[in-house]
């Protein structure tokens, strides 16, 4: 007894160092988890959160009776699905090309430039998009479309264009980051494979298909599975800022994250909003567990747990 106590005492300085971080996680991450019960309550601020009446699944009933539940689930899944597929193809392609560049300075220059969009905030991105799509002064409406003999388009009022716009913006913003990850694993491939292949007379294209792609496929599969695990969460900024929260566009821009946000802060509909949040957290959690299981089956080293 005394021994364990003195042993614990020796570690006290370390435990003290860990304290601020653990307290922060408790406040920022664990308290809100307990707050998930809000989805089952009829929130009445005069009674406080914990003392408010329970109302079972009423919030969920309201949520799933509306068309909203269908639209936000569909949008969230389709957008994230498109981001995963298109992002993967482009990032791997660009990473392979980057690896071909022998000039180190140019290679670094390309990487630097392509990472820039990743570093700026979505507010700024919305300004950039507005520069192109703005109704009166935007580059497309004012310069490009007239040159092509086309009529100006009210981009921020036409839902049908937004799936393409959002996919493009997302690709633009994320490609640099994703391709650096793939580039790192390509650089890690043993050069001897390539030397042997060259001696055997394999062309560059054959080398890419037979050496590079198979050898980075574990990374590709792991990252893709992890992205699928997060398919219920979307980049709030992309779907809120870039379409400028335009109500006309909700049909093709509303995702679970923006729906929860609007329910909470704009429509004051805490019940429905927290039900949607609960739906997202729980389905998201199940998806992460399932994908981790899949990653583990595929390659044990890359599984999270």
């Amino acid at each position, binding site marked *: 007894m005394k021994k364990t106590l003195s042993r614990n005492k020796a570690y006290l300085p370390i435990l003290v*160092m860990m304290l601020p*971080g653990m307290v922060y996680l408790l406040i920022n991450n664990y308290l809100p988890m307990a707050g998930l019960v809000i989805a089952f309550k009829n929130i009445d601020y005069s009674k406080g959160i914990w003392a408010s009446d329970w109302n079972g699944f009423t919030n969920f009933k309201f949520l799933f009776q509306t068309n909203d539940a269908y639209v936000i689930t569909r949008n969230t899944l389709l957008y994230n699905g498109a981001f995963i597929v298109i992002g993967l193809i482009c990032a791997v392609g660009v990473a392979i*090309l980057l690896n071909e*560049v022998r000039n180190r300075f140019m290679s670094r220059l390309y990487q630097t430039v392509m990472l820039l969009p990743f*570093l700026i905030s979505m507010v700024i991105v919305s300004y950039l998009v507005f*520069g192109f799509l703005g109704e009166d002064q935007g580059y497309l409406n004012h310069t490009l479309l007239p040159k092509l003999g086309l009529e100006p388009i009210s981009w921020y009022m036409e839902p049908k264009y937004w799936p393409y716009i959002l996919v493009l913006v997302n690709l633009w913003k994320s490609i640099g980051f994703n391709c650096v990850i793939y580039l790192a694993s390509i650089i890690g491939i043993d050069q001897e494979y390539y030397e042997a292949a060259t001696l055997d007379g394999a062309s560059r294209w054959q080398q890419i298909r037979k050496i590079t792609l198979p050898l980075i496929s574990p990374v590709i599969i792991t990252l893709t599975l992890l992205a699928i695990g997060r398919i219920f969460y979307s980049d709030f900024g992309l779907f809120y800022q870039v379409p400028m929260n335009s109500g006309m566009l909700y049909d093709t821009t509303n995702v679970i994250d923006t729906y929860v946000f609007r329910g909470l802060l704009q429509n004051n509909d805490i019940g429905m909003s927290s039900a949607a*949040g609960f739906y997202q*957290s729980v389905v998201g959690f199940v998806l992460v567990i399932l994908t981790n299981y899949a990653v583990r089956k595929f390659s044990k080293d890359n599984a999270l747990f």
Partner: protein
Amino acid sequence: MNQDKGIWQWVSHIILAVFCILCIIPFVLLVSASLSSEDSILQNGYAFLPKVFSLDAYEYLTGNMSVIGRAYGITVIVTAIGTAVSLLMTAMLGYGLSRKEIPGYKLYTFLVFFTLLFNGGLVPTYLVYTQMFDVKNTLWALLIPGLLMNGFNVLLARSFFINTIPGPVLESAKIDGAGEYRIFFQMVLPLSLPIMATIGLFTGIMYWNDWNNGLIYITDQKLYSIQILLNQIMQNIEALKTASSAYGDASANAAELPGETARMAIAVIGVLPIMIAYPFFQRFFVKGIAGGAVKG
């Protein structure tokens, strides 16, 4: 065969150069708009080269230093404090978790890791911070919720400590009589510069770019950071547009909002520090992304 390589070189350079131009072009449009005269934007729209060059937009900025300077100051303060505190907390927790002999080691590690898998979501988080901690309209709101520390960075730091700081070094320091704090601050931290630089850069950029916390927790204009200010300006203009089409007059209020070019100038000064600082840190950043994302 050599020819084959040469063709690949050319094709790669051309495709990558096109990609890079596409990445940079929107910034050119933004900067060009901020350097154009207001009239030329209204008449000719945005263009890649200013049709009529003018610094009026930047004069507007200097003329509105009370608002813009303040927002800039808030951004700088929040970024500096947030990044410093975040780094210290992340390093200390990560270091603790790298010492597998501490009591409760498994539990702590699991508690950190679990935050990566599951979260309460926006509504409960919002209620915790507004009802229990009352951060609404305080500087705390820009510093603490969501941004201060995350499990991913802690685990990143932890695996760096485990992999690069040899246990015997710590042991011998202890035998020489160094206390835990001394070991951490005088030995571990200096040896961990690469990972600290990476995490610091990630966190700094996150704080600089944050508009989300401002949108959720801040309504007091005095606490607007530069990103929140940009967000508000854009939203107000959209609101005015809807109002003017509904009621037919919003021109009275419109005068108070900065013009097209001035808005673009504020956006330019919002990204400028990142664009200037980032190339110097690029080495760390790319290494950090590569190491962190693949290895986890």
